[in-house]
Structures are given as structure tokens and as C-alpha cells.
């Protein structure tokens, strides 16, 4: 395909999806300019691929996010992106739960999460380990299926399900202190149950 055709296809097909790629990059990177740079490199790679081959028009978003993922990994390897200090294995076995059924209606998970601003949720997301963050970004934020996400991240479907579950749990654990601080939640049900059990034993 010549450059003119590739340019036309780029502006017709890729250009409308640039904000999807940029959003993932922004939630992934700590600095906005690094995210912009990462997205730019991703889209230029997509353009060059269009010049070389006839790129299918289906699953373009997945294709672009795969390029983004590979570009991000290359940069990580080259030390051009700061790796997260957190590790996937550092997750505790149990974690607190927000609210119980007989607590005030403000402990309703949906209501509780709506009380957080977008920025607070993004900050909590950015604090997650990278692989977990990638999973939540693709599955929950971008709404991709488990299989599609597994292909992009090159891991089995089960790993995506597990990471998604763990990621959401970690996220609510990150948000819980903030919720308590803001008196959005009354007590931690598991902690309360444990205290009750201890009392019964005594």
C-alpha cells in the first residue's frame, strides 16, 4: 500500500480510536507526557504497519492496544518507563470488606463508589501493580472480553479472571481507608465478625 493510501486509512480508521489508546496510556503512566509519547509511538507503529500490510478493519481497538502493550513492554525493558515497585505476590490472603447489609444505606457498594471522584479512582488504579492495572484497564475500563484481554496480555483466560478479581479487591482495599476517612462507610464486616467471635470464645 502506498503512503497516500496508508495515510487515508490511518485517518479513517485509526484516528477515531486514538483517544481510547491515549486513555489507557494515561491511566497506565504516571506522567501525562510519557503517556502522550507512548501513544504517539504506538500510533506511528500502527501507521507503518498499514504501509506494509493490509490491516484488517475488525478488532482494530484490540490491535492498537496490543501495539501499545508491546511498546510499553519495550520501554519498560529499556528502562524508559519507571516500573511499579509493587509486586503481584504481595497481596494479603484476606482483605476488609466495605459495609454490611444492616448498615446504613450509604454502605451500598454502588453508592459508595459513586462518592469517589474520577481522579480518586484513577489514583487508586495507578497504585496497583502493573499487570493487575493492565487487566482492569482492559477488562473494566475499556470493556474488552476476557479472551480478548488474554490475547493482548498473552496470558491464559483464567489468569485474566483471577487478576481482575484480585485487582478489584485491591482497589476496594485502597479506597476503603479513604471511605472511612470521609465517613462513607461505618465498619469493616470481617473485622467486626472476628471481634464477635473472640468475644464468644472468651
Amino acid at each position, binding site marked *: 500500500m502506498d503512503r497516500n493510501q496508508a495515510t487515508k486509512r490511518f485517518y479513517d480508521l485509526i484516528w477515531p480510536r486514538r483517544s481510547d489508546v491515549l486513555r489507557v496510556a494515561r491511566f497506565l503512566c504516571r506522567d501525562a507526557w510519557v503517556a502522550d509519547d507512548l501513544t504517539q509511538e504506538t500510533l506511528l507503529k500502527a501507521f507503518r504497519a498499514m504501509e506494509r500490510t493490509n490491516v484488517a478493519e475488525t478488532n482494530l481497538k484490540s490491535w492498537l492496544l496490543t501495539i501499545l502493550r508491546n511498546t510499553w513492554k519495550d520501554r519498560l525493558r529499556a528502562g524508559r518507563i519507571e516500573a511499579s515497585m509493587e509486586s503481584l505476590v504481595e497481596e494479603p490472603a484476606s482483605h476488609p470488606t466495605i459495609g454490611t447489609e444492616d448498615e446504613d444505606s450509604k454502605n451500598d457498594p454502588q453508592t459508595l463508589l459513586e462518592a469517589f471522584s474520577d481522579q480518586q479512582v484513577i489514583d487508586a488504579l495507578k497504585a496497583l501493580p502493573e499487570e493487575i492495572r493492565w487487566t482492569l484497564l482492559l477488562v473494566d*475500563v475499556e470493556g474488552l472480553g476476557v479472551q480478548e484481554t488474554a490475547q493482548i496480555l498473552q496470558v491464559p483466560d483464567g489468569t485474566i479472571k483471577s487478576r481482575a478479581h484480585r485487582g478489584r479487591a485491591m482497589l476496594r482495599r485502597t479506597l476503603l481507608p479513604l471511605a472511612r476517612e470521609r465517613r462513607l462507610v461505618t465498619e469493616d464486616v470481617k473485622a467486626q465478625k472476628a471481634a464477635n467471635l473472640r468475644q464468644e470464645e472468651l
Partner: protein
Amino acid sequence: MSDDYTDEHDEAIDQAVAARLAKLRAMPVDTSHLDNALRAQIPPIRQERRILSLRPLRAMAASVLLVSAIAAAIMLTASSGPALAEATQMAQVHQDIVSGRIPVMQVASIAEANRMLNSQSPGAPTLPQMPDSHVMACCMKTVHNKKMACVLLKDDGAPITLAVASAADMKLASAPVTTRNGIDYRVQKVADVNMVMTEQNGKWLCLIGQMPADRLMDIAAQVRF
């Protein structure tokens, strides 16, 4: 049972977290920096864009031409020769100014009235000096698209409207002529409102008021352009 409950509850929270994260998808993303960088590296195809952008330009140019042609036709029709101010029209103008039905500018002198009218409508006809009259207010009116400067005067407590236009724009009414000191006055009456019209130094002027036509002609005689 409570373990089952907490599992279900955890599941509900999981779903709530997923739903909250999904809402981030609707967040606007500022792509301006990225757009500039990409356009610099992958310039859009100029030829096609020019062709595409010329189409609306041509359509717009055609529309402008059409509107201009219509406007020119209207203006030519409207400006073909001097307009005739009907006696009823002029009586109405006077009544409207006196009763405050039309917006006027409060002024204390003819000089101030001229300044105000010129700032409102550049090129407005210049009002003449009226030595013995008390100037109260002024406004611009149009008759058949011709500009007419109006000033409200007070003569012995009675309001008079003096309307001035270019003699090229307004023509004198076909009305009985009264000649005084070599000047012809067209005298008309609508109900209890009298009016006199005349031309002086290329200006058309009309004095209107609820007073005898003779008094209006006396005042008109004082007009100095």
C-alpha cells in the same frame, strides 16, 4: 451463612468496582498534543482535503453572491429616487416621540443631539441650529429606508418634532403650498397635528406639532444649516 453472605457481598462490591471503572471510559481525553504530533509526522493528504474543503467554500461563495444580489436588488428598489413621507406617517412619528413609544436619547442641545445621532448612526443627517428652542431628545428614524434625524423641541411648553433628511432622499408632499419670505412650505394636517415641510440648502425638513401651522412656519424660518 454469614460467610456465604460476605462472599455474595464481595461479589456485589466487585461488580460495583467494575461498574465504577467502566465509567472512566466516558472521561474526556485531551488529544490536542497528540494530534499535533501525529499531524506533523503523518501529514493528512492535502490534495483531497483541498478538494473536500473547496466544496463547502464554493457553496458558501454561491450563497453569499445570491444574498448579495437579493440585497442589492432590494437596495436599488428602495433607493431609487427620493421617498415620500406620508403626512400620517410623520404625525405618527411625532406622537411616538412625544409619548415615549420609541426609544429616544435625552439631549440638552442641538450639538449634543448631532453627536449622539452620529455615534449611533454614522452619516446621519445634521440637525440645524434652533436658537430659541429648548432641545429635549433626539432619535433616528427611517422612512422607506431613508435616514431621518429627529429632534424633540419645546416651544412655549408645546412639543415640536423637527425631522431632517437629505433632500435627495426625501421629497416634499403634494400638499397646499404657503410661501413666506420666498420660501415654499407644504402644509398638512392630520387630526389636530399640523406639519410643514420645506427644503433648505439641500436638506428636507419637516416640523410637526399640535400648534398652528403659522407658528411652525415661524420656527422653520429660524432654521440655519
